[in-house]
């Protein structure tokens, strides 16, 4: 059957090589020009439990995962039980029929194909390791798609480069065996994927994009306290420390991480910290310290279902209002929620520029789904990230006479030098201070300083990108959302508009400062509004109500710890009258 889309899921116990196999699958196709989006799901366990990797490839443009799976590669029985309902009519399940007899175990679906590949026997006969079972399943899956296995072998070499030759050879062999088993022994060809122009695409996660933008932006100090979602960012920075003169720090807690970043930033370098919601709670105090001392810092908040420890390896958009209001007192900040890795890249670049120019904390909120899912893009445009700090910082030449660190300027920004200059000596003070930085309790001064800090909002509003409207200007229904639900909603409105329903979508990346004017204009131009959020309490709708007084009545909310699928949104929209 000729197809333009294949969605593949592999599942089994943690420790079976599933992340690597998934990565190889996605990369094999992105290298050859296909659009790919994938996602890994795993329990908070080192071994055991249930872990799966889903990868969707397409010869055209895609924005998110979809619900229907073409091939389910089940390394254990539980994967079949949990996921066979997702398999599309006449789709395929690959499983080890020598390990367990299906009939005794699961409700067999009549409308799909179950294909047995003896993973365990092949592993034993070929002297492979258990962890390579996933590669056998991967090879078998490629045969079903009738895709050249050599491309995957090349990817294995890439992904495992630097590892021992024997490891690479064994992994490649596992792949080829799975492939041959389907092709030569069972002689099954299930799908024929539409051919695309083989221009390699960039395959990056949200975390990758944040890291790459950090390096490009000249981040010199990075810190985190080890956490499953942020560790890949730390790893990436640590690997290039010497090449790019960056210190990547594994902090004992998030309090240290943020305060060290503030210290380094005070001295004059660009800094970034990453954390999940629990760590961000610990950073609350430091956030205020950065704000009143007017020290730039970029904080990346990787949301996961909470409160407290919650579901540490799953996804949710539950911390938006928290990030807007965290820390005591009132101060300007910028909160940005990118919708996909491309936006992660450009907006992280913007975050560094804004933080430095306005001397404020900038918070970038991702969630587990966005941090760890790969998306393909043609390329990133370097011209869009420019670290223009040389024009922002004062040099000895710029300073004549007294230097006022907190000079009360028209735009609220008080230029500063890096530490060590003879003429620009100054103090940063977390107590309210006068223009020199000296502690000051005077009532008039207090008002003046608060006004000075908030005057920055005017400039910020001109720099930030207002919410973007996707789809037709005139629509019967308008969906409102923010951050990572962008992809599923874009897919959903594509489906809806193809069914002659006119639906558009307003997507927020910048959440603070809030651009009231444009939001009011959008509200006036829309007839029926629906909020789509990956949380329980519709936080964006509250934010909109706070600033505009307008309440969005229709809500599609998901808070199961899983990202939306476009089909779910379509079905919910169809129910709204």
């Amino acid at each position: 059957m000729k197809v333009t889309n294949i969605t593949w899921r592999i599942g089994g116990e943690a420790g079976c090589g599933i992340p690597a196999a998934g990565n190889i699958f996605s990369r094999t196709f992105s290298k050859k020009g296909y659009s790919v989006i994938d996602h890994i799901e795993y329990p908070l366990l080192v071994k055991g439990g249930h872990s799966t990797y889903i990868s969707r490839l397409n010869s055209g443009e895609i924005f998110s995962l979809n619900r229907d799976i073409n091939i389910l590669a089940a390394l254990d029985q539980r994967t079949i039980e949990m996921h066979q309902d997702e398999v599309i009519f006449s789709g395929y399940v690959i499983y080890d029929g020598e390990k367990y007899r299906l009939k005794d175990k699961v409700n067999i679906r009549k409308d799909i194909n179950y294909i047995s590949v003896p993973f365990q026997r092949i592993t034993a006969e070929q002297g492979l390791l258990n962890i390579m079972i996933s590669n056998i399943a991967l090879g078998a899956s490629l045969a079903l798609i009738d895709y050249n296995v050599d491309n995957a072998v090349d990817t294995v070499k890439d992904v495992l480069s630097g590892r021992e030759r024997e490891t690479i050879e064994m992994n490649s062999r596992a792949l080829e065996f799975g492939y041959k088993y389907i092709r030569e022994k069972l002689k099954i060809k299930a799908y024929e994927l539409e051919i695309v122009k083989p221009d390699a695409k960039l395959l990056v996660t949200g975390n990758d994009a944040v890291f790459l933008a950090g390096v490009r932006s000249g981040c010199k100090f990075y810190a985190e306290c080890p956490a499953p979602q942020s560790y890949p960012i730390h790893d990436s920075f640590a690997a290039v420390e010497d090449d790019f003169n960056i210190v990547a720090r594994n902090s004992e807690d998030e309090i240290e991480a943020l305060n060290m970043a503030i210290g380094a930033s005070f001295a004059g370098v660009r800094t970034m910290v990453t954390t999940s919601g629990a760590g961000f709670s610990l950073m609350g105090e430091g956030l205020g310290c950065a704000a009143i001392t007017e020290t730039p810092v970029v904080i990346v908040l990787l949301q996961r279902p909470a409160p407290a420890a919650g579901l540490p390896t799953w996804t949710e958009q539950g911390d938006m209002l928290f990030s807007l209001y965290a820390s005591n007192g009132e101060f300007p900040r910028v909160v940005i929620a990118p919708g996909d890795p491309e936006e992660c890249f450009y907006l992280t670049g913007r975050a560094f520029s804004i933080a430095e120019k306005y001397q404020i904390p900038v918070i970038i909120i991702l969630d587990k789904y966005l941090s760890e899912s790969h998306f393909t893009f043609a390329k990133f445009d370097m011209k869009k990230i420019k670290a223009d700090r040389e024009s922002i910082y004062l040099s000895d030449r710029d300073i004549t006479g007294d230097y006022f660190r907190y000079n009360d300027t028209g735009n609220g920004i008080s230029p500063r030098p890096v530490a060590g200059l003879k003429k620009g000596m100054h103090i940063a003070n977390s107590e309210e201070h006068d223009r020199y930085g000296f502690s000051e309790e005077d009532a008039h001064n207090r008002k003046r300083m608060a006004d000075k800090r908030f005057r920055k909002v005017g400039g910020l509003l001109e720099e930030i990108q207002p919410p973007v409207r996707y789809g037709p200007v005139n629509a019967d229904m308008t969906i409102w959302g923010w951050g990572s639900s962008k992809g599923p909603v874009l897919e959903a409105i594509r489906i809806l508009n193809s069914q002659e329903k006119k639906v558009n979508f307003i997507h927020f990346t910048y959440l603070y400062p809030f651009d009231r004017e444009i939001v009011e204009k959008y509200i006036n131009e829309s007839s029926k509004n629906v909020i789509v959020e990956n949380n329980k309490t519709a936080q964006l709708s509250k934010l909109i109500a706070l600033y505009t007084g307008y309440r969005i009545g229709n809500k599609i909310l998901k808070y199961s710890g899983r990202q939306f699928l476009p089909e779910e949104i379509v079905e919910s929209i169809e129910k709204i009258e």
Partner: protein
Amino acid sequence: MREEYRLKPSDFNTERRPTWCRGCGNYAIHDALKKVFVQLELYPHQIIMVYGTGCSGSGVNFLRTYGFHCMHGRAIPIAAGAGLAAHKMTVIAVSGDGDIMGAGGNQFIHACRRNINITCILVDNHVYGLAGGQVSPTGGNDYKAGSATRVISVQPINPVSLAIASGATFIARGFSGDPLQLREILKKAVRHRGFSLIDVLAPCIIYSSVDIYGYYRRKIYRLEDVKSYDRSKKAEAFEKSLENDRLPTGIFYKVDEPVYEDTLKQIDRKPLIDHIISDIDINKLLNRYY
């Protein structure tokens, strides 16, 4: 680089005069800092002072250097971050015992174990002075302090023992009533490469109910006077630090061990703050993602 101008302690004065209470130990520390900077020929712009929150924190207003007055307990990580970014500068954290031994306890032990190249002056008055005189983590059961209406029976933290156990490489105790010794210790601490702690007994005369200076004078003796004492021996230093009937002051422990900053190749070439970042080429890095 030698500069022509001859530095004097008053070069470190700001337009504001210290506001500490009469008899406060912070004066002695403030004074020692200025004099030691002069002796070491450290100019104001070559120094970053970081202050926590408490009585000592107001020092940010009185000492002319680069300065940062941070949140309660956070002086050490702020100082460590600043020191990493500008590692040619002299970085000193000054803060109270409530601050560093209480809220900042975790950061303190990790700074010790990493041997970060900063100096930490612990202004040890056994009370939360600025907060109203409550007993602090170093406040012991041997004298009544502040809000404690009866002699309390919890064990105080001994900053010197804690620093030894945590891996700091320069550990000393000073006394605000002995400015000469304090200066000598401070000078060596600033010169030391690695994490240096000076636990300065700096009594708060407002919240102490006894003749606190007299009390210390009777108890204290100088380690310099103990000829046989070898300050390079960790176990000996630890044992010394536990002495309580009489209180040793001076340098308990000093060794040269790898310094955190020295293990970082990426700051070896030049300080992080000196890099031009306007057009960093990441194309090679990007290729890995194709």
